[in-house]
């Protein structure tokens, strides 16, 4: 009942190669205003030229530290923000400059799940109302909406009887399931998942990760999965993009990124992850980065990572390294070279 007007991925010429979302050179600059007249005195370059594709039934993980622009990227992609520049192509349609009204049918196909399950659910609505709301907004509730809500609650492994309760009666993990049920209500093609498990305890986090994987398998969903936790990203993603200061610095399959990273930042990041195995404590080499992430309002010239990079040369300040194929996958470094930072075989 929901699917009639849905743009399906098979219908789309541009999507025929399996690409559901294609982002090209996306820029999101926020003006810095000062003084009584709110004069623009500069910009925060939160996202500064990001390009990636997400395929049918594929998970692309975007990983990076706070302030790297990964969440801003997701918000611009779903047009909660108006991008400064670039192109967002979803199911063959350019949605970069689309009006709110025209975006409505698109929004059915692309839904977002937020990090904080306490802030993203209206405390005055019952769970049934929360999950039914997207159906009502799109005029689909009258026709079998009640059954649909029950089905959605079962999909996320909550019982339909939970529908009469309010969000405060649920734990963090259950709330996140409610958020996922709401996102699934309109049968989307793609979910943007912005740190969906970061606020959850390990045992609950595992439940939600498994749920996301099961749903993807059943419904052939595409995921853009945003997280700072490299272990979670490795576990759930098919391909991974590593972000630093508004740029994707490396992009490849998860094996390429985790087993054969070529960008110094990816290598430093992987070397810093604590590994839950005391037998690996010895003999691990840690790449310690100097200093802090530069101010995104005043990013370094050339390569944005050069101020903290041990490989930096003159060229790094002069020329911005393009994200190009090196050693089998994309890397934005003048001196890209594969290094095995984490090996499987070390254990035991």
């Amino acid at each position, binding site marked *: 009942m929901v699917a009639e007007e849905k743009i399906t991925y098979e219908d789309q010429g541009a999507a025929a190669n399996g690409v559901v979302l294609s982002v090209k050179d996306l820029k999101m600059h926020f003006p810095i205003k000062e003084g009584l007249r709110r004069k623009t005195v500069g910009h925060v370059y939160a996202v500064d030229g990001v390009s990636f594709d997400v395929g049918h039934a594929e998970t692309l993980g975007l990983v990076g530290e706070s302030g790297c622009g990964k969440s801003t990227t997701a918000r611009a992609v779903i047009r909660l923000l108006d991008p400064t520049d670039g192109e967002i192509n979803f199911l063959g349609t350019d949605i970069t400059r689309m009006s709110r009204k025209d975006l409505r049918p698109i929004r059915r196909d692309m839904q977002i799940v937020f990090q904080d399950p306490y802030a993203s659910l209206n405390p005055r609505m019952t769970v049934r109302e929360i999950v039914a709301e997207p159906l009502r907004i799109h005029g689909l509730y009258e026709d079998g909406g009640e059954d649909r809500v029950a089905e959605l609650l079962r999909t996320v492994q909550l019982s339909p009887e939970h529908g009469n309760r309010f969000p405060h009666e649920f734990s963090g993990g259950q709330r996140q399931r409610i958020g996922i049920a709401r996102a699934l209500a309109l049968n989307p093609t793609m979910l943007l998942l912005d740190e969906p498990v970061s606020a959850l305890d390990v*045992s609950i986090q595992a439940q939600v990760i498994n749920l996301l994987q099961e749903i993807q398998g059943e419904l052939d969903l595409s995921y853009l999965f945003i997280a700072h936790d490299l*272990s979670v990203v490795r576990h759930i993603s098919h391909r991974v993009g590593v972000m630093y200061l508004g740029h994707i610095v490396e992009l490849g399959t998860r094996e390429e990124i985790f087993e054969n990273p070529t960008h110094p930042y990816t290598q430093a990041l992987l070397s810093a992850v*604590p590994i839950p195995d005391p037998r690996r404590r010895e003999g691990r080499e840690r790449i310690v980065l100097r200093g802090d992430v530069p101010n995104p309002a005043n990013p370094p010239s050339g390569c944005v990572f050069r101020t903290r990079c041990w490989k930096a040369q003159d060229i790094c300040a002069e020329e911005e390294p393009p994200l190009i194929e090196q050693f089998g996958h994309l890397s934005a470094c003048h001196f890209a070279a594969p290094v095995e930072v984490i090996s499987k075989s070390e254990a035991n």
Partner: protein
Amino acid sequence: MTEPVLSIRDLVVEFDTTDGVVHAVDGVSYDVHPGETMGVVGESGSGKSVTVMAALGLIQIPPGRIVNGEVLYKGRNILGLDEDELRKIRNKEIAMIFQDPMTSLNPVFKVGDQIAEALLVHDDKLTDDAARKRTVDLLEMVGVPNPDRRFDQYPHEYSGGMRQRAMIAMAMANQPSVLIADEPTTALDVTIQAQVLEVMKVAAEETGAGTVMITHDLGVVAEMADRVTVMYAGRVVESGTVDEIFHNPKHPYTLGLMMSLPRVTGEMQKLLPIPGNPPSVISLPPGCAFHPRCRMSEGRELCRTKVPELVEASPGHMSACHFPDEVAIEAKREASVTGLEV
């Protein structure tokens, strides 16, 4: 082995709430020896923070209440000492590092002055100049660049990682015998976390203190701890050396945590979560508090009726499970699902 520098014995802490009595800490015991790091792991609400807060007289009474227990610092019970005496021990003898360095530093005072104050409070003879010099040394030790200039800056001028370093410097200031770090790196990015953990190791070495590292992060524990205490629903369910806990767990909850954890090393093919949710500490399940979520307890009367005591399952390795020797068998079974050999 040396005498423990800090020993928590049978601590019971309750809180009165409108919904009933919260049994936040229910008979917790662990020891910390000089120079070692004791990792205390557990999920939110397991009582890992409340245990040390209560031990140091930092919970509000009422609604809180210490029902039972002893906290032995160098053999002397400090539980129930009056505030003046406790204040002398806190920071000087037992120093704490909290999760959020922004809320534990005063925003209107210079960082350097706050560290110097910690020194001056406990030493009447120290001059201001000497305190400044010692503070600059401390800042340098924890890796704050340009420590002399940084001394005169305010907390907002420090980044998150730098603030946590300043907190560690403050904790080290009086050469404490015990360092208690409560989720010291949880708010930090992974590259900054790595730096701060390195600094924590330096701090422990410099002071020779026994460290209590409270965290929910098994990676941090594996990296830092010598011994580990695992907590669940206000109780200790397992304790032992870090290698035993990770490679020979004897409690199904500990095993459940391992099998729930995605690995950056890629060994985990499929996660096997612990089913259900943690119990309410207002009304704990009868018997073993973990039994409703335990794959090993199915059909077992004992788990539902009798609270298992924390007893030695093998030398130096304590478990509060009725069937500690079956955990290894369960681990093999679960490994066939997850691909992770414990």
